[in-house]
């Protein structure tokens, strides 16, 4: 072992750097969160002993359970909408001529250059009572008086879809890119129509991309607290809002930490499912 390190100093340096990074910047903060979640709330020092599971018990409070479920529902709707838009979008994108593909992907990525908070405010201007959308609909005579678009569940979902759609499209685009045309032809050749080919070949072969997209959308969707803050009003909270409120407003660190851990565990579970589906496809599908 010592000898191999001496022989390959670069390799050793890289390993130390990576492990050091993971240890101090990933593992340690997470352990601190775990630690905080099992401690007691203390108005003066944020947290104090003794250790207990009160914070977790508090999660089962019907009030928070409802927030969690509503948050999950909004995140799930966001994911579904992203999937419904992103799947055909990615499919079409992969069929476009190569040079245009690069341009389209570029257009997809450009919004990332603007801070998402700013973009959410822009969305607020569009959805506001005297906003762009209402004015447009009224001048077209479709509606007579401004509709309540802002501060609704729909506004939160629109905001989340707007911010997260690229995260659904990109992994889907990558699996559609790998989808070989002759495999689809083979399916037709063997007697499968369009629907049978979609169901038996296209869906299973793009499933890893669907799961990756779902992971990249569902979990952030539950955490993007500023979207409900700006677009949602007081009733459409995300788990992220609860966590933020506990840390910054209510000063209940153990409870905020416990909520955050539940979110992390949900993510771990999804990643595990993603791995399983990849293994089922074998190395080629991966």
């Amino acid at each position, binding site marked *: 072992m010592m000898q191999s390190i001496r022989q390959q100093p670069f390799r050793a340096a890289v390993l130390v750097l990576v492990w050091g990074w993971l240890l101090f910047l990933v593992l340690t903060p997470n352990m601190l969160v775990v630690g905080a979640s099992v401690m007691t709330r203390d108005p003066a020092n944020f947290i104090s002993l003794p250790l207990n599971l009160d914070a977790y018990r508090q999660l089962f409070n019907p009030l928070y359970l409802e927030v969690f479920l509503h948050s999950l529902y909004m995140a799930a709707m966001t994911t579904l909408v992203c999937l419904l838009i992103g799947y055909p979008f990615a499919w079409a994108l992969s069929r476009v001529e190569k040079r245009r593909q690069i341009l389209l992907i570029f257009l997809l990525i450009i919004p990332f250059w603007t801070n998402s908070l700013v973009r959410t405010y822009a969305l607020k201007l569009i959805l506001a009572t005297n906003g762009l959308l209402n004015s447009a609909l009224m001048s077209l005579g479709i509606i007579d008086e401004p509709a309540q678009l802002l501060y609704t569940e729909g506004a939160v979902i629109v905001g989340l879809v707007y911010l997260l759609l690229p995260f659904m499209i990109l992994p889907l685009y990558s699996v559609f890119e790998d989808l070989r045309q002759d495999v689809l*032809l*083979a399916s037709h050749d063997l007697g499968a129509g369009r629907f*049978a080919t979609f169901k038996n070949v296209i869906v299973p072969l793009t499933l890893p991309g669907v799961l990756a997209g779902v992971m990249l959308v569902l979990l952030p969707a539950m955490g993007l607290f500023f979207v409900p803050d700006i677009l949602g009003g007081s009733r459409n909270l995300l788990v992220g809002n609860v966590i933020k409120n506990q840390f910054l407003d209510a000063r209940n660190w153990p409870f905020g930490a416990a909520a955050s851990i539940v979110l992390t565990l949900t993510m771990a579970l999804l990643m595990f499912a993603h791995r399983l589906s990849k293994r089922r496809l*074998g190395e*080629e599908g991966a």
Partner: protein
Amino acid sequence: MTRTLLSLSGISKQFSGKTVLDELSLTIDDGEFITLLGPSGCGKTTLLRMMAGFELPDQGTITLSGVDITQTPPESRPLNTVFQNYALFPHMSVFDNVAYGLKMEKRPKAEIVERVEDALAMVQLEDFARRKPHQLSGGQQQRVAIARAVVKRPKMLLLDEPLSALDYKLRRTMQVELKRLQRELSITFVFVTHDQEEALSMSDRIVVLKDGYIQQLGTPREVYERPENVFTARFVGQTNFFPGRVTNIESDRISVDVFGLNRELGKPSFRVAMNQSLHVLLRPEDIRVLAPDDAEGVAGKIVERNYKGSTLDSVIELEDGSHVMASEFFDEDDPTFDYNIGERVRVSWVDGWEWLLAEEGDEPLTDEEELAADDAEH
């Protein structure tokens, strides 16, 4: 008693303004092994994809057993394809890959199991049914692709350069295997290849294609021994083209002057006139290399010799600068058989083995010229 299975008539196809197939007609007999042979871009793959239904012709009709299938989608055509890169379903086991077509037909489960097992036994892959495609070698994947295509008992099997991804030895094995399968199943095989050796050894008939036109259609022997045009002669096997001149015409014989030698030959099928120039074709194996003091033949010197195991291939430069390829079998009894480069010899051939072709307006380039043109392009 041959019966027409598939007939293509007046097929034309353009891709973005470029004509790939032009008014092509072809009939394929039931039970034959027919090969579409040609260089890349000759339209052979497009033709196969049209038979499969992956491409629709711009003009023309395709009939299968008398039924017009020109517009029939691939899933409704009773023929199956073996793809160049196998196109196996990566997420399915070998068994499920082979069973796919039968499942689409909604066959009873017991029948599917039995037929899939039979098909896998036929390609000697019974023990691999549970494996995934990526766990198989190239040759094994190829055999799964064949089993998957034949399990539906198609009227016709379309094979798109199925052996091109395999190494030489495996290729030879699969060639024999495919012939055996074709005999056992008595299914019509349409085989696409650019490998003339493969075409000659496997086919009942060969369709030589170039630029969307059929150059020649015939048995391997006809195509090799009696090429109808310069392209076929050059593309199928190696050929020496000697310049000839007609010196005498009789009712069924003509005399041709080749390198000052006077040869009496059968009258060719094309019209000949006195003093007309024509090509005198001789395969390298028809050429005899003689000692320099021999009375027969044309004088030259050896410029290249290649030991090939079963044959000795040499190139002789004649006095006028032209090159002659010769391929001779070893003669154990002849101690002077081998040559040195630069050695003076005389070149002759068996009288009557010449094949005559008329000169064509725009003759294809020779291999060397083509290579030079390629180099210039890149």
